[in-house]
């Protein structure tokens, strides 16, 4: 009768809560998302392919994935340093820094977008200096990278922090007692132990960046072929009543997101297997 067969438990309320959970999940998430998939099947494959590979779309992929990758890499490096100093060192203002790391989560993306634009535009606080050096940030691909770095930072820091805190100090002591210098200990013992967490944080940051919209649209300038991200292109197509095109593009992005989600789950599974496997 019920495919979700449960083991007996005296706790009441299983049927009611599970029923509501499945109902609500279907209503809000699954049915709308499957609508997208069904809708895209109304296109023929050649049409679909043509629509998701036209030059303007290809340019948007290049910018979206390129800038997301750059942002995630910057975050992997600096996020590591931030997480390391927050866990291992004491310094004035540490608590505030720790709390503010989540700002990109908490700040509405549109607000981040206009704030970053104000800073990096030609006569902004930083933009004017960059301009003097001949570097253009706002309304150029660099601006997109800046925005995507901003919104991806907490993912790397928050994934690494618990992993660094969980590092067994005896490991480092053992390495030191075996004659390793600090740098060797760091590269050979610490970094490999943190690699799964670092990769997970990197992947989460990358995944978030790919779907990002609000913080980018203000700073990017939205020039077709040059500074137009894929999310914006979906909206543009929708506003031009090109529903099929928008749907096709959305499906591509959805599949990419799911693949990334899968990769992240595999990463987490791998790290838990690798480090906690033998212990029953």
């Amino acid at each position, binding site marked *: 009768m019920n495919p979700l*067969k*449960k*083991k007996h438990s005296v*706790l*009441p*309320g299983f049927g009611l809560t*599970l029923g*509501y959970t499945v109902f*609500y*999940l279907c209503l*809000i*998430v699954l049915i*709308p*998302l499957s*609508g*997208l998939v069904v809708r895209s099947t109304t296109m023929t494959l050649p049409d679909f392919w043509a629509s998701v590979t036209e030059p303007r779309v290809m340019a948007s992929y290049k910018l979206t994935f390129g800038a997301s990758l750059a942002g995630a890499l910057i975050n992997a490096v*600096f996020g590591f*340093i*931030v997480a390391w*100093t927050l866990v*291992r060192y004491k*310094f004035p203002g540490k608590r505030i*820094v*720790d*709390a*503010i*790391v989540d*700002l990109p*989560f*908490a*700040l*509405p993306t*549109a*607000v*981040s977008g*206009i*704030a*970053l634009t*104000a*800073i990096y535009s030609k006569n*902004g*606080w*930083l933009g004017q200096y960059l301009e003097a050096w001949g570097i253009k940030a706002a309304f150029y691909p660099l601006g997109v990278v800046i925005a995507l770095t*901003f919104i991806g*930072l907490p993912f790397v820091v928050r994934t690494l922090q618990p992993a660094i805190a969980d590092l067994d100090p005896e490991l480092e002591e053992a390495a030191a*007692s075996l004659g390793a210098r*600090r740098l060797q200990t760091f590269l050979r013992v610490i970094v490999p132990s943190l690699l799964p967490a670092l990769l997970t944080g990197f992947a989460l940051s990358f995944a978030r960046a*790919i*779907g990002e*919209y*609000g913080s980018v649209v203000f700073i990017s300038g939205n020039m077709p072929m040059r500074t137009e991200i894929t999310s*914006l292109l*979906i*909206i543009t197509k*929708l506003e031009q009543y090109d529903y099929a095109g928008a*749907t096709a593009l*959305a499906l591509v992005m*959805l599949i990419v997101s799911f693949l*990334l*989600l899968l990769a992240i789950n595999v990463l987490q599974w791998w790290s838990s297997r690798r480090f906690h496997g033998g212990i029953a």
Partner: protein
Amino acid sequence: MASLDTIYPAVPIKVKAATNQEPLWVRVILITITLAFIGLFLFLPLAAILTEALRKGLGAYLESFRDEDALAAIKLTLIAAAISVPANLVFGAAAAWALAKFDFRGRNVLVTLIDLPFAVSPVIAGLVFVLLFGLQGWLGPWLSEHDIKIIFAVPGIVLCTIFVTFPFVARELIPLMQEQGNEEEMAALVLGASGWKTFWRVTVPNVKWALLYGVILCNARAMGEFGAVSVVSGHIRGKTNTMPLHVEVLYNEYNFVAAFAVASLLAMLALVTLALKSAVEWRMNRTDVDTIPPGKE
């Protein structure tokens, strides 16, 4: 005592600190990088918002909130949050009860599906509702026949907000309730408490901080969501603009002071969220410390 000191010099402690600690100059450099990076990327934007909002003085700043459209945007944002947060709170509690307190086939699949909205780009979240309820959508013709407006109206905005904030409460509660196990609930049942009383008197007090944490994050996202609602709102001033959308409209009209003024309200909300979040995290860690069983291990 002097002889003791010579037998047990304080050296071992120093040696230990040295093996696990980078040299001072490395630490100074790393801390400097951290402060510079966080300052540049996180503090600077906050400062920029306030500066831009107050560029033409406090009067102009306050004037921005006199605008009827701004007030309507604030009101709509509050409505969207007031519906979506309780809806997802009830869902989160129900899902956590079913998924954390019971074991059944398909459980892990459901846990993954609940996280799905986080993996979906906000723009796509908006798009799916347009495809469902828009004029060109599945239910569009039927809805327009019956004069029901969802897309480019408040219901669509609320739906999108519920979608993007869907997992927040559930994902805080499920791991915690699973970790806490069923023993306290069983004990309550054996003592004669009903299921409902067990839930309210035993389960809820045990997860109250995580619950609050989830609600805080859910609320912040609900009030701040931009991409998804931007797709379904239609940007009708005074009617279907939430605060983030209103910021965009003002900004695109080059009304920077007003845009940053509304943005500053949202930034304030973000800061309050962060402060509450830190406070709740601190409380949660404290309860953790309290409940380390001395008898175990």
